[in-house]
């Protein structure tokens, strides 16, 4: 009885530590006050202010475009990598694909910056951000697709060949439909990672190009306005929705296997 009570307290404290700051942000985004100090009253004023902020909207548009394109390309490449890693016992490929996942973001950001500037002599901007986002997303998609394949009975694919399907038709009729939930989950993951990314984007964005996280950061440098609370709330909502969707498509990633 007593142990159960303590366990509950510990759990509550942990969740409070994780989610209270987020709750505060959401709460104050509806606070009718310029200061993030005391609750004054309910308003949606900050949200309508957001919609009038040209610079912020531009940054949000960039973020959406980058997320859409980079996650689409990363999903195709990551799916191919995931299938290849599952089918053949390659040693180098998993290393190459998964390293960006484990690499500290700041390292990846710096090295990508150096690569784009010193090696390729590229003008930083939309394209460099896209390439950077694809780079760090591929690994996540590959992991999810491979996990999906690993849970499947290998003889299903042999059965398809055996029953008259060419390798290509086996892929389109059997493999693809079966790993589709994994691909969708991977896509949503990649999208979320891209739209939230700050560190790597910060290094490779160059001048004149801004994404939502970069824009929020530059706004904070002046002051934490309720407007930032509002945009953060929206971003949080989008992220949670995508993660929720992803976990529906690939539940095996979020649940421990029995």
């Amino acid at each position, binding site marked *: 009885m007593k142990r159960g009570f303590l366990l509950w307290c510990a759990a509550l404290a942990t969740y409070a530590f994780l989610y209270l700051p987020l709750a505060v942000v959401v709460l104050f985004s509806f606070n009718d006050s310029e200061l993030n100090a005391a609750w004054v009253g309910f308003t949606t004023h900050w949200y309508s202010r957001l919609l009038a902020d040209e610079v912020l909207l531009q940054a949000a548009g960039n973020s959406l475009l980058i997320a859409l394109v980079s996650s689409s390309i990363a999903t195709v490449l990551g799916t191919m990598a995931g299938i290849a890693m599952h089918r053949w016992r390659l040693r180098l490929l998993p290393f190459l694909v998964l390293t960006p996942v484990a690499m500290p973001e700041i390292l990846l950001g710096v090295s990508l910056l150096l690569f784009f500037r010193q090696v390729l002599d590229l003008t930083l901007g939309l394209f460099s951000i896209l390439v950077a986002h694809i780079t760090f997303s591929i690994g996540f998609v590959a992991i999810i697709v491979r996990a999906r394949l690993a849970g499947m009975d290998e003889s299903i694919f042999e059965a398809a060949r*055996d029953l008259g399907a*060419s390798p290509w038709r086996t892929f389109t009729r059997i493999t693809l439909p079966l790993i589709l939930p994994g691909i969708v989950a991977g896509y949503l993951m990649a999208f979320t990672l891209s739209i939230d990314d700050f560190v790597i984007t910060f290094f490779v964005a160059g001048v004149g190009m801004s994404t939502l996280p970069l824009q929020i950061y530059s706004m904070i440098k002046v002051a934490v306005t309720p407007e930032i609370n509002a945009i953060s709330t929206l971003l949080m909502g989008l992220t949670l929705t995508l993660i929720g969707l992803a976990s529906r498509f690939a539940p095996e990633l979020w649940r421990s296997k029995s």
Partner: protein
Amino acid sequence: MALLELRNITKRFGRLEAVKEVSLAIEAGEFFTLLGPSGCGKTTILRMIAGFDAPDEGELFLDGKPLSGIAPEKRPVHTVFQSYALFPHLTVAGNIAFPLEMIGRPADEILQRVRETLELVHLEDKGSAFPHELSGGQKQRVALARGLVNKPRVLLLDEPLGALDAKLRERMQGELVALQREVGVTFVFVTHAQQEALALSHRIAVMNAGRVEQLDVPEVLYSSPKNRFVADFIGNINVLNCLVAESSPHGLRLNVEGLGEIAAPAHPEIAAGTHGVLALRPEYLRVGPATVQASLKNRFLGTVSEYLFLGDETVYKILLDNGTVLEALVANAAPGRARFHDIGERVQVEWRHDAGVFLLA
């Protein structure tokens, strides 16, 4: 000409020789079984027939034409996998229609043939169910239907009954035999269950360590095993160590140490002085009170050390005077008495001179 022929097939995995110089000829319409313990190479042979593996040496022929270089999807051979390998995202009807769609049959013909095949396996009402909604036996039937729907020349079955419980397995055995007779497709069946092999097959190849030890009809395999491995693997068998005292066209005279001489069927290749074993099936032995005059040629005395009542029959373990234990199977052919001898009772064990098989040790 045989429908399917394997000529000197050898398959290696790294340094392991999984299949060693195997030659088989399987006739059209046959229910042919590859029987052996796990790792004997039977599944590897199946995979080579299906086209998933290629032999390192030798060649396979279907209708006299070599199969090498022909992809699995181009061979008129289908497989029923041990795990059934049903497509989880397709319905039962979708699974069965798959091979027909792959060869591009028109939709109305596919519908018709799927319906007929569902009837064949008694699953008329399960067409729209998904594999995960089916029981083990039903999945088994769908796998069979899918394998048979476009009438392959050969259906390969890889331990298809292995995942079923005992009662269901027995029923499916009966259904398999009936199904094979009805469709007339050549079945190549792989199993490690000797009883299943005996019950289902027209011919059985007993395999061990990559080789075929003996190939024959079930009755001959059972009554005349060629060597110790086949004798031990198929059914229960007693072995008596013995020395050949005399070998003539009329029969063998064998000397069993500490017990005396017995007679066995003639064996032209065995010379006097050879050491070996006499293999005796438990049901060929007759057990009776030690005092009764023997009526059969071979007779030893012993003591009942144990008995197991199995319902339809009783197994007696009899300790012979030289220390050998024989198992004798006595049918409980009439009601009332199921137990004829007590533990510790002196009994005689007798058998016909042609009941045993002499095998080299």
